[in-house]
């Protein structure tokens, strides 16, 4: 018996970089979503271009899926070493599907089914193209799970396009060889559903949300795991009138984005921790000149170059401590691709409304994971562009760029507006923009300007939403998470519930400034456990520092890989 829920299946494909692990996943995800199935995939790859140990795991289900699951029902090892590395992970009753030209099976397990296919035998004319084994084995998987092979042909046709008829035919041929020569199948309960899904990564959701949210300037310097945002904009920007530019480094990136923001454009840029380090000086400067800018930081395993292709939530304090001095900023961390879509646009709104830098904090897992998102959950009409106060005509009154107002926000006049001129400076300045650092630092003026800027924080925090609170009343355990751990906490909660445990889940997306209500909410529960993908439990530190509320129970992971439901389930036992 498979230890899995009926109606879902977990497939793992493992190989080396260059073996086509990602495209195997890509094709499978397209097939699944076109069958109306939910899915979630995680690609555990390495920081080399060829070689290295790579595996991709996808959970496919009749319903929406939140994580890539734990141990697989089906393993597809693309070479010998990956066979050894992963064979023990397969659940009892599961399948190991392999190309016998490349993988020799030994140390056989008696509790799994071996499905052996030979590319050389089944499709001699294509056996020279190593990559063809993937489609062969995919055909077998489709057969085992009972997915729709006709639809798969369609997907293949779409992928390779009309121009490559020969390639399309070859792929279909080999796929069918795999499909037809697999004599075994299993009823996972997977059935075509009448649902529509987008298949999207967190990064694409950010890009799409920003584009729809009015981003018109995107600057970047490539850095994993943020790079695919650049790729999206580079391929799509021109269509939507978005200037897209790769600069010489992250310092140029963020300063250019600030320049673009200063002249009145909605500007965004993205990087990971190392590049973010280089951006910090300018982030503080945007707060000082009160220029809107959005910086996406997609976190990876740290410190330093660290684990470039692994996940971690270790950069919260970096975001918090970015640049010298006290200044207003916002840090938000979407919990999944749907949130990423909306919050990316919201970040642009917050930035313009409050004229501050906004940091959108995501991580490798969310950025590069593939998620099936039900159609109705992404509604572009919900995105409203809010620019804050922009003055275009002045009725003779003297314009003060940094007017001291009750909210701390001073209406903007954009450069190019005639009849007005001002200078925005990173030095301390008075309401009119004139420096107070050079001739005489009037202490009262300085105090006023500092308070004006910091006052924004009171209003931002009011705009912020409360955390997501889900689950049972009178919970035996309360999980607290932030960012990408939402899915795994949700699935783990369900596992626990099946064991009769009452669980609730408080998930924070609006990270900084901290809403004091979070502490109030948590203090109602008796057994609060924080779940973080880092070593020092950065969020619980932030919460304690801002509210005094302590979370003493912690489940932390910092080995590069994301949490999985069973892992979290096991870890949570110590608090039950």
């Amino acid at each position, binding site marked *: 018996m498979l230890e899995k829920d009926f109606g879902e299946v977990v497939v793992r494909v493992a190989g080396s970089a260059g073996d086509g692990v990602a495209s195997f996943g890509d094709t499978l995800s397209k097939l699944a979503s076109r069958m109306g199935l939910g899915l979630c995939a995680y690609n555990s790859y390495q920081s080399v271009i060829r070689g290295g140990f790579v595996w991709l795991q996808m959970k496919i289900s009749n319903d929406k899926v939140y994580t890539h699951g734990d141990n697989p029902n089906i393993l597809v090892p693309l070479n010998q070493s990956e066979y050894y590395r992963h064979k023990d992970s397969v659940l009892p009753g599961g399948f190991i599907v392999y190309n016998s030209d490349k993988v020799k099976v030994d140390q056989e397990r008696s509790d799994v089914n071996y499905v052996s296919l030979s590319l050389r035998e089944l499709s001699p004319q294509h056996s020279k193209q190593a990559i063809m084994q993937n489609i062969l084995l995919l055909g077998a998987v489709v057969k085992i799970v009972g997915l729709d092979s006709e639809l798969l042909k369609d997907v293949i046709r779409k992928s390779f396009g009309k121009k490559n008829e020969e390639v399309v035919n070859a792929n279909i041929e080999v796929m069918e060889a795999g499909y037809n020569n697999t004599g075994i199948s299993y009823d996972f309960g997977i059935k075509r559903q009448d649902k529509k899904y987008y298949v999207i990564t967190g990064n694409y959701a950010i890009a799409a949300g920003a584009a729809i949210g009015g981003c018109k300037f995107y600057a970047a310097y490539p850095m994993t795991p943020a790079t695919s945002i650049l790729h999206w904009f580079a391929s799509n920007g021109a269509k939507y009138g978005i200037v897209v*530019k790769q600069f010489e480094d992250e310092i140029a990136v963020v300063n*250019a984005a*600030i*320049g*673009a923001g200063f002249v009145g454009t909605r500007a965004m840029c993205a990087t990971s921790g190392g590049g973010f380090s280089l951006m910090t000086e300018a982030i503080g400067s945007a707060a000082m000149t009160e220029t809107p800018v959005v910086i996406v930081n997609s976190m990876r395993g740290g410190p330093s170059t660290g684990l470039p292709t692994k996940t971690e939530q270790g950069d919260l304090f970096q975001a918090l401590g970015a640049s010298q001095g006290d200044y207003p900023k916002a840090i938000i961390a979407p919990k999944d691709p749907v949130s990423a879509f909306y919050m990316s646009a919201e970040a642009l709104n917050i930035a313009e409304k409050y004229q501050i830098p906004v940091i959108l904090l995501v991580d490798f897992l969310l950025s590069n994971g593939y998620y099936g998102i039900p159609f109705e959950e992404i509604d572009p009409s919900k995105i409203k562009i809010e620019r804050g106060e922009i003055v275009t005509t002045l009725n003779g009154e003297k314009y003060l760029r940094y007017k001291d107002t009750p909210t701390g926000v001073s209406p903007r006049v954009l450069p190019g507006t*005639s009849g007005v001129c001002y*200078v925005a400076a990173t030095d301390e300045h008075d309401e009119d923009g004139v420096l107070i650092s050079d001739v005489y630092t009037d202490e009262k003026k300085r105090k006023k300007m500092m308070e004006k800027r910091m006052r924004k924080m009171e209003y931002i925090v009011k705009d912020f939403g409360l955390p997501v609170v889900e689950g049972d009343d009178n919970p035996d355990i309360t999980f607290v998470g932030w960012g990408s751990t939402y899915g795994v906490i949700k699935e783990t909660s369900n596992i626990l519930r099946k064991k009769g445990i009452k669980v609730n889940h408080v998930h924070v997306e609006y990270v900084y400034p901290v809403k004091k209500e979070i502490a109030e909410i948590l203090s109602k529960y008796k057994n609060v456990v924080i779940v973080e993908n880092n070593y020092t439990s950065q969020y619980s530190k932030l919460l304690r520092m801002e509210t005094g509320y302590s979370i003493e129970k912690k489940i932390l992971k910092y080995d590069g890989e994301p949490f999985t439901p069973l892992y979290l389930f096991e870890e949570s036992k110590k608090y039950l």
Partner: protein
Amino acid sequence: MQAVDIKNFQVNLNPTWCPGCGDYGLLRGLQIALSKLSLDPSQVVIVSGIGCSSNLPHFIKSYGYHSLHGRALPTAEGMKMANPNLTVIAAGGDGDGYGIGVGHLIHACKRNIDITYLVMNNQIYGLTTGQTSPTSDFGSKTKSTPEGNYEYSFSPIFLAISAGATFVARTFSGELEHMSEIIVKAIQHKGFALIDDISPCVTYNKKNTYQWYKERIYKLEDVGHNPYDLSQAIQRSTEWEDKIPIGVFYINQDKLPYDQLDPVIRQGGIFSKPLELTDDQKKEILYSFL
């Protein structure tokens, strides 16, 4: 040229520079040039870094952005890309532009973006009270090299040419008419223009004084220099200690500026367009994820 009144570019604030500082000269030369060009101050943005020289935007009427040390150029590039209708001028010191900011300078030259960059070169770090700069002469005694500078200086002119700048000139803060003419040409030039302005620091650079420069300076136009000839330009660019040329070293009109190559910027930039996409565009984006 039909000039507007120079008052259009004057503000009610006295520069904070030391009396005699060369930066007064560049300020004046720039104001003359902008009035010669009859520009509307509200269509001009001047972006600077940090340094004595980088205080310039405060002393001239136009939009201004007084950015970080070394970061005037990328900030200016973002502005130009977002709103190419603006006349974008970057300004700063030799430390700012050739020291900490030299990477951006190289790439701005390479990118050939339509910005005029004015470097007030005093061969010293002024605002931090007198340390070695990249253009400090070999052997110069400064606060950070009390026994003399052990680095050979480079020629920013040579460097900019090698990186691909399409308009490279030198001016002198003691020659305003000459300077303003060159600034006019630089702003009119479509592409990246570097002007290395010799702007003496009367407080911290006791070697390279007005007098020192005056004894050495000559005008390129007086010796029949052809700025369209790369090898002539390079040869002149390395002259220093004995003779110091001012004028236009190099012009290259074969390369299009970045802002005319990029398909979005080319269309007048994004500034004038509505931020919101059409419903069809939104759908297209989402459907690409199906």
